[in-house]
């Protein structure tokens, strides 16, 4: 089963759950060549492989759009649900009740989340659904060939669309305003950071919102646009380097991790994320600071990346329902149908 073909340049090896990296792959991508989304898919594969998370303990969810197609391109061995435009959050919310041990991975886009799906996004965040919620954010509708999305910056000019007149929606700000317990932003051109944030997000208990600026190579990649590679590379201001150490694996330290000013945040499962300050002392457990940071970065025209906010102690949605240990979808009639005797009691209550 693990006798699979290695990728060029990769070592032939299996992880702690006996799976090769190929066991985490999906179908070949049908997105445009050079699309930021493909890079994100690859980091999802790497993060899960390196964290020894078995594909059967995650479920994939998506809505409609280019980003929402991407769950086909990773984790073929995981269950997946490609639903309706803007409605991925509700499907994931219900589905994760089926087996509370499963972690959801949702992939959405800026149209799917910030336009048609804003309501469901915010309510899934508010409920602290046990999932990683990735927004592959490119400020444009790709699949319908280049219309503005709600995250497009004001003044952006697109072929056939003219000039965008509206101020953009900041997905991280919306998430924090809705009481998110984990909010991070990254840039698809920085795969190392994407992966580390993904790992932290996967280890978080509850909803983890990852707003990943993922440039559209076809419809929105002018050098002066916020969601382009060139702009991103020039304006990226990493908050801190971040390294994830899973509780059961001591060897996952990055080689380039530095000593110095370190802040540890303990996650619900006992694992720790270690935050490294780059240019200022930033406390990601402070909601007000997080909003100030986003506001300032907006004013200063900066693309702040890193872990913006985390609240590790809040119970996830399924935690709050106090479910039986056995996954609900494995319960039988004996667990689910009230006794024959009870019907008389019920009828006696109807008068």
């Amino acid at each position: 089963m693990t006798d699979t073909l290695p990728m060029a340049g990769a070592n032939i090896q299996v992880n702690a759950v006996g799976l090769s990296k190929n066991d985490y792959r999906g179908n070949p991508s049908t997105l445009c060549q050079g699309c930021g989304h493909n890079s994100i898919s690859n980091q999802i594969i790497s993060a899960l492989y390196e964290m020894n998370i078995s594909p059967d303990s995650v479920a994939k969810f998506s809505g409609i759009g280019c980003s929402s197609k991407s769950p086909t391109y990773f984790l073929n061995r995981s269950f997946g649900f490609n639903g309706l435009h803007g409605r991925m959050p509700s499907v994931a919310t219900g589905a994760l009740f089926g087996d509370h041990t499963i972690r959801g991975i949702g992939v959405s886009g800026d149209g799917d989340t910030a336009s048609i799906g804003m309501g469901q996004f915010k309510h899934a965040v508010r409920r602290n659904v046990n999932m990683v919620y990735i927004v592959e954010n490119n400020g444009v509708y790709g699949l319908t060939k280049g219309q503005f999305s709600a995250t497009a910056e004001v003044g952006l000019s697109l072929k056939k669309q003219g000039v965008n007149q509206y101020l953009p929606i900041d997905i991280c700000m919306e998430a924090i305003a809705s009481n998110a317990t984990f909010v991070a932003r990254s840039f698809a051109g920085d795969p190392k950071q994407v992966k580390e944030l993904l790992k932290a997000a996967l280890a978080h208990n509850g909803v983890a919102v990852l707003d990943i600026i993922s440039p559209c190579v076809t419809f929105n990649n002018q050098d002066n646009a916020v969601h382009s590679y060139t702009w991103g590379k020039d304006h990226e201001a990493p908050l801190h380097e971040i390294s994830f150490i899973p509780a059961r694996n001591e060897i996952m330290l990055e080689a380039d991790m530095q000593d110095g000013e370190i802040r540890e945040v303990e996650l619900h499962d006992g694992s720790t994320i270690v935050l490294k300050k780059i240019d200022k002392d930033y406390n990601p457990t402070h909601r007000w600071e997080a909003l100030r940071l986003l506001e300032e970065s907006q004013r200063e025209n900066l693309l702040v990346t890193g872990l913006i906010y985390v609240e590790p102690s809040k119970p996830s949605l399924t935690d709050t329902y106090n479910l039986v240990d056995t996954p609900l979808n494995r319960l039988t009639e004996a667990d689910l149908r009230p006794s024959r005797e009870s019907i008389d009691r019920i009828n006696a209550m109807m008068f």
Partner: protein
Amino acid sequence: MSVNSTKKPARIVNDFSITVGTVNGSGSSTANNTILRAIFKMGIPVSGKNLFPSNIQGLPTWYTIRVNKDGFVARRDEREIVITMNPNSFARDLADVQPGGAFFYADDIKQPITRDDITVYPMPIKQLIREQKDLASNLRDLVSNMIYVGVLAQMIGMDLETIRAALTFHFKGKEKPITLNYDAVVAGAEWAKANLEKKDPFYLESMDKTHGLIMADGNTAGALGSIYGGLQFAAWYPITPASSLAESLNEYLPMLRKREDGKHTYAVVQAEDELAAIGMTIGAAWSGLRSMTSTSGPGLSLMTEFMGLAYYAEVPVVVWDVQRIGPSTGLPTRTSQGDLSFSAFMGHGDTQQIILLPGGVDECFEFGWKSLDIAERLQTPVLVLSDLDMGMNQWMSKPFAYPETPMDRGKVLWEKDLEELKGNWGRYLDVDGDGVAYRTFPGNKHPLAAYFLRGTGHDEYAKYSEDASIWLRNMDRLKKKYETAKQYIPAPVLHAMRGAAIGIIAYGSTESAVEEARYLLDKENGIKADFLRVRALPFTDEVKKFIAKHEVVFVVDMNRDGQMYQLLTVEYPALANKLVSVAYGDGMPASAKWVREGVLAKYKKPVAAKAASKPTKATAAKKVSKAKPASKSTKAAAKKPVKKAAPKSTASKSAVAKNSRK
């Protein structure tokens, strides 16, 4: 039309209706339910219907109770006894009393009594309440409704002990509110005994016709049935008249699925809207939970896109639609069967949905568990169409029956099954030839268990496909599955009458009105009718045979367009000329009167004027011009719709028999 009482009229026993007019939000429901329960407890067939406005406080509201010794408990237009506590509806309530009827009113309402053909009983409600020494002032308004219960009890012969039993039930045995309310009842009864002379002819006498029956509303029944069906997940959004269904889940699940470790085998989520409610329900169903949502018209509209997904991607969800009258926001507190056509094809593209049509609260219970079995057996949505009248009003019913069959989870593969198959399976592979494939649930650890569900085109292995032949194959299989459904859905119920010449097809909450109309058609008009109550879609052979067997079949719909009639004409075009639509929808529960008049309005035509359709048309036109309002008040006259007969030869879409409820 005055029938001045020089001599006492004959006693009328156990056959009249009582209507109570109050101000919405004044707490009259306890009083009215108490009357209803007490009469039921006396063994007399009874029904109670709340005719309420879309309002929390202030607007007029009515509660109408029908007592009928023969067991006919559909809503009735005639109001023999009217009680009014509301100055704003006083004049209207007074005008509504049948000649010879009785009118009770709170005597602090100073308005003229303009009738001399009825018995009038003023009630000193305020004075009697003031005399209740132990009553806190903030409870006075609430308890004052109990005074009229007492007065009425004394005047028509309701047993005070049964009233006490009803209050004990209502307040779940809590002594303080029971005593508080009962004291007010007694005060009303004693005052009436000392001060009122019985002049009206209406009496209650105990019978034994409710023995072994229960009283319940359809929403409670549906919730309970679902719980006995092993319901694991429900998501919902508040909407009248469906909210109490989900609320009943919250009430009964903790009791019926209590475990020693205090943990839960279910989850109920109040969603942010109906889009999310159905989305969560579909997500949960996909992950292997028995799942349902409950809503009404506007919410159902919002669920449309998701229902198309569930149909095409084959996710077994149950959707309860407690219908209210639309289109649009419509009349949120009025009943209807107006969502039938919409539900049948719910979703864009070629979509066919399975529909269950419960005819009473016992069937709401039965279809509660059965709908989950059918949905999982067929891996498709099942809509259960109840309505406001059935869902929110109290109905007499046979007791709820424990499910006679084990839970049917349908075709599900777990790790062990996949090992036996050596992983050789496809999510949409029709191995049994019935159109229904096998499915797996997330959490299944077999390496080949997972599949990617999508609303886009997919092949037998759930892989994305735009191939035309694969698309056709899949759509044909879904069609086949709809055929397969016929062996799992509830069969129609036939009520035959010896020597019947005509047939009646109806469904849902109109059953008791149709039964009474048949009785009257036979007794008053000499028309005997067989009655087929359809309980599900798709239509099964029994329906076709019933239509084929009768020369003419009247299809009774509680909506404007005759939606069941329309569906039948589409399903059986060769039999369509036998079908006649009797459709009416004004938001009020069905009455025997409109069913009967609807049938009579079109009855002559197929028999007498069968050969010539054109003259019939002319006759119909004449009838319209001749129709005269026959009503005692101008207000009522203005609302009176005309009766009109339809040309039989055209497959007319619109409903034509319209009968006033007055």
